[in-house]
């Protein structure tokens, strides 16, 4: 493809390329080893307490199809992902739009807006846990102040999932908003000037111009948010540990418990392999769609 050093040096440059690349390659293979270990061990009854590790074929996977806890955690994972992604993309887009308007104090707003994105997720979870405390928490106080009914937040199985989605949204709305903002600001000017000359309505411009032009950015946001939500662990574990009554028990948290509470490593790996397969297929499809959208927008 690109060879900066001419034909004479092609042998040396190839060797250089290889030498520069090798250390990182070794490390990458190093990551694949534990990963492969998980896949192989998911076909065994490996248990850390008893020390057994016998090959049982698809035994773990068959067991999962009959395990109501597995189905529950799959359902929780999908609900969490759906809820969080819709909420974050919706509000994130509105935020990007508002920050792009050029209202007073713009630069300061933007800096303040991006702060939560860099919070350690566990810290965000702890912060919100303190505010969501049912009796002394500030949220219920504020709700009472304006005459709304108070909530159990993380403490009740009916509201826990929505509460962790809110915490996740706190951290990731800025993430989504910042990416949309960058996308909006990188939009080409000419098509909009042409549209203004033709006198088309702003809704039509938005639907026929902005959305198609932003498609690569929208896909990147979806890629990162969907994948992160599917494998989510930190915030949920720090906020609820999967409870109450498995209401927030995602696949990641479930497999953590299978490993470290029940020491059923083999069974836990089977959960993770299923989760990984979902994530891998989806991310592959989204990356392909993204590449296609980039080609469409930028030509070539």
């Amino acid at each position: 493809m690109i060879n900066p050093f001419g034909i004479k040096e092609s042998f040396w440059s190839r060797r250089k390329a290889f030498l520069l690349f090798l250390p990182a390659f070794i490390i990458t293979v190093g990551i694949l080893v534990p990963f492969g270990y998980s896949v192989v061990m998911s076909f065994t009854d490996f248990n850390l307490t008893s020390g057994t590790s016998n090959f049982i074929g698809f035994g773990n996977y068959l067991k999962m199809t009959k395990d109501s806890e597995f189905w529950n955690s799959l359902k929780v994972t999908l609900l969490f992902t759906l809820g969080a992604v819709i909420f974050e993309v919706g509000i994130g887009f509105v935020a990007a739009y508002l920050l792009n308007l050029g209202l007073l104090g713009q630069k300061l707003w933007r800096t303040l807006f991006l702060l939560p994105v860099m919070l350690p997720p566990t810290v965000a979870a702890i912060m919100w846990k303190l505010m969501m405390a049912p009796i002394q928490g500030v949220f219920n106080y504020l709700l009472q102040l304006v005459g709304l009914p108070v909530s159990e937040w993380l403490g009740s199985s009916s509201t826990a999932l929505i509460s962790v989605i809110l915490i996740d949204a706190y951290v990731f709305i800025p993430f989504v908003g910042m990416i949309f903002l960058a996308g909006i600001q990188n939009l080409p000017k000419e098509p909009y000037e042409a549209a203004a000359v033709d006198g088309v309505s702003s809704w039509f411009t938005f639907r026929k111009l902005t959305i198609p032009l932003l498609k690569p950015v929208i896909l990147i946001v979806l890629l990162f948010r969907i994948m992160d939500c599917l494998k989510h662990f930190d915030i949920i574990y720090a906020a609820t540990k999967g409870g109450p009554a498995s209401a927030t028990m995602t696949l990641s948290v479930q497999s953590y418990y299978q490993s470290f509470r029940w020491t059923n490593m083999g069974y836990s790996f089977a959960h993770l392999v299923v989760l990984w397969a979902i994530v891998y297929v989806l991310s592959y499809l989204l990356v392909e769609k993204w590449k296609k959208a980039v080609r469409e927008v930028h030509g070539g």
Partner: protein
Amino acid sequence: MGNEKLTLGKVLSAIGLVLIMSWTIFPLYWVFNMSIQTPIDVISYPPKFYYDATLENYSVVLIGKAWLGKYETVQTDFPRYYLNSLIVCSGAVAISMLLGVPAAYSLARFAFKGKENFAFTLLSFRFAPGLIVIIPLFVIFRRLGLYGTYYGMMLAYQLITLPFSVWLMRGFFEDIPIELEHAARIDGYSWWGVFRKVNLPLVAPGIAATAILSFIFAWNEFLFGYVLSSDITRPVTPSLMGFISYEQVLWGQMAAAAIITLLPSVILAIFIQKYLVRGLTFGAVKG
């Protein structure tokens, strides 16, 4: 702006902006608020907006029970956890920059077999569920004697920082016009000379941004530290879980610990604001 008409749309936009900003700022303000209240004030109802501020919580968290003993506190060794995080994150960033920068240059400038496959494999690590690598590492590290050691944890943490560094740095190298390198070659610079005199100065801001972002990601990381550390090498983010079980009594201290933990990430993020979008999307969106 002042002489423009005040339209309904503008008023609504301003209200929307205020709402979104309060959603972002209020939690940070409130937790800081809690962190400087006395144990009595912090659990009072209704919550107090005006009170006598105290740094007691910070000193208790930072120094520990054995020294102060005035209020009940968790037996944590917060300064040590902080230092652990510093050691492990710096180590991981150093490893991933040393290995990642040459690899990124190689990916950006040379053609070789399997290059794009390698790059996609690195990207797919970003989306893989962490536990699928962490649990085997836990088993393997225990066998190799790496469990709970700084070296083991640096190796584990750079599994996050290395793929990130390679992807981001590749983009920064690709931004440099190839013609600059050609010109320097014609001027008689060696390959190494070109890299040192042309590329490095141009990507220096990119390298700094990549290193800082890697550091933040490592600092924020929870699972690797939670599973692979011992009591002595525990990093600060997982150590916060120790406060959670005591939440009924120790709100002020929890808040103080949370504030101390988030400071490095948030402050560093402000410095590299310009590169944040690019960093968070692995270079896919150039902000």
